[in-house]
């Protein structure tokens, strides 16, 4: 059973007399312990979707269930308790500028319980150490970099030991280096604490690096859902193709004849093997590599090559490649 279940959820906003559907009937299940990505261009409804999960927005139609309980039926007090168990981080961090990093993390505990014990104080220090900010505990947000602020926000979101962490464009305001740091941290938290993480982003690269599965959202509807490898390398929808395109290598336009061109995709052990040289051993073909890339998904490494293979034994090479676990597509 899914930990988070959205069933036919729609959200309509009324803006200056005009109403607009941010979400038009979305059903989605997110399993315990996975990092689930929600990707889409701006205006696709992805921020609305994640905000429904902790009821920062209420759906116009449909239900949101967490652990089997319909959160639309909760009272204000029950909702507060739920939110203590549902951490959330934002693009703009949302830290209190009047409190230090330590006070910001402690604040989450103060909201959830009446008295703060020495154990709680220790927990705050542990969390700050966990996100690598022990030295900056007494600084105010204005004295921290963007990446450090997001780390404080993560520590704060984890203060009440939630089962789920919601990330709304959490790395979109960060420079590439800080983005890497935050993504690595999220992946570690998922691995070490079994934290279920929902990541909303417009960047396929974020999804590529940390997600197990991803839903592609387009104009308030789900265009497709699947494993990251599936959505990235074998996209079915135009939306997914558009979002993933720039991550894949492209052959330069000047590289000549395209009728012999192939795209090879391979995963896992094949990456470090010699599939291409093995396949072309002792046969009469010529091949040239036009573009290539080896990179990583959460599930392991992948390789991607654009090659021209020509000659009498071309079909045999393709058979050999397919047999060794390489996905071969003609690019013409």
């Amino acid at each position: 059973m899914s930990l988070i279940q959205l069933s036919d959820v729609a959200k309509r906003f009324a803006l200056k007399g005009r109403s607009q559907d941010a979400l038009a009937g979305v059903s989605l299940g997110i399993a315990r312990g996975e990092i689930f990505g929600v990707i889409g261009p701006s205006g696709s409804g992805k921020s609305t979707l994640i905000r429904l999960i902790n009821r920062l927005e209420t759906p116009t139609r449909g239900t949101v269930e967490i652990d089997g309980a319909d959160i639309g039926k909760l009272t204000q007090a029950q909702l507060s308790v739920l939110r203590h168990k549902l951490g959330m981080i934002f693009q703009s961090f949302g830290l209190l500028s009047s409190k230090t990093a330590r006070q910001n993390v402690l604040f989450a505990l103060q909201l959830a319980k009446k008295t703060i014990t020495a154990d709680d104080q220790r927990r705050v220090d542990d969390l700050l150490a966990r996100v690598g900010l022990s030295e900056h505990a007494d600084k105010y947000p204005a004295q921290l970099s963007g990446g450090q602020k997001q780390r404080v926000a993560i520590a704060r979101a984890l203060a009440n030991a939630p089962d789920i962490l919601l990330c709304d464009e959490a790395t979109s305001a960060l420079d590439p280096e800080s983005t890497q740091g935050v993504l690595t941290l999220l992946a570690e938290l998922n691995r070490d604490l079994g934290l279920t993480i929902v990541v909303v982003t417009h960047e396929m690269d974020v999804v590529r690096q940390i997600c197990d599965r991803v839903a592609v959202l387009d104009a308030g509807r789900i265009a497709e859902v699947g494993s990251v490898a599936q959505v990235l390398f074998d996209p079915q929808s135009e939306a997914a193709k558009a979002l993933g395109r720039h991550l894949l290598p492209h052959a330069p336009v000047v590289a000549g004849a395209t009728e012999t061109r192939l795209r090879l995709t391979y995963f896992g052990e094949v990456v470090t093997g010699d599939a291409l040289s093995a396949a072309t051993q002792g046969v009469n073909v010529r091949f040239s590599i036009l573009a290539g890339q080896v990179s990583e998904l959460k599930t392991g490494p992948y390789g991607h090559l654009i090659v021209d293979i020509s000659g009498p034994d071309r079909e045999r090479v393709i058979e050999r490649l397919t047999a060794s676990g390489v996905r071969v597509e003609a690019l013409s």
Partner: protein
Amino acid sequence: MTELSQFFSHIDGTEVALASWQTVAMLVGALIFSVILGLPVGIWLSVTSPTGLAPNKVSYGLLSLIVNVMRSIPFVILFILLIPVTLALVGTSLGVKGAIPPLVLGAAPFFARLVETALREVEHGVVEATQALGASKRQIILHTLLPEAMPGLIAAVTMTAIALVSYTAMAGVVGAGGLGDLAVRYGYQRFQTDVMVVTVALIVLLVQGLQMLGDALVSRFHKR
């Protein structure tokens, strides 16, 4: 040197000191009550405003109207209009005591509006993040909105204090005493320019001092 002392021949130290004391007493007394009265009104305005935590058109509209009406009555007229109320409240409409109720009713609506604005300027993302942490509306107001708006609130108190200085001068005209009274009775009605100069200088000093104190407190609370 003699010319200078001749110019200031009408200055009576005791009277100036007494008037200064009255002005400060009116200011401090009225400021305290203006804050006590205006702060909750300002919070209420901000919370019930269309973009607030708990929008409520009727409540916001009504309170907003009352505040606007109070703010549009010129202070001297408000002072006179309120005489029966003042008598009922403090037993006299004269002196420092009699000036405080009208000063408060003149300044509190002004302060309330400033509080509303200061609270509105708290970044929405911070409020939302606090909501996501499971905070109740009460907790959001007490632990997020007010602390985050603290520099703005202190600036609001400073502006109210300065507005009150000019109100106390007007109150002086209608029997409240203080530096305004001194300036009008001696400086204006008896053509004693030196009294006018000294009282104006003291008022300028007072305003300057308040502004500097306010600014210092604002920068102390500003953690940016």
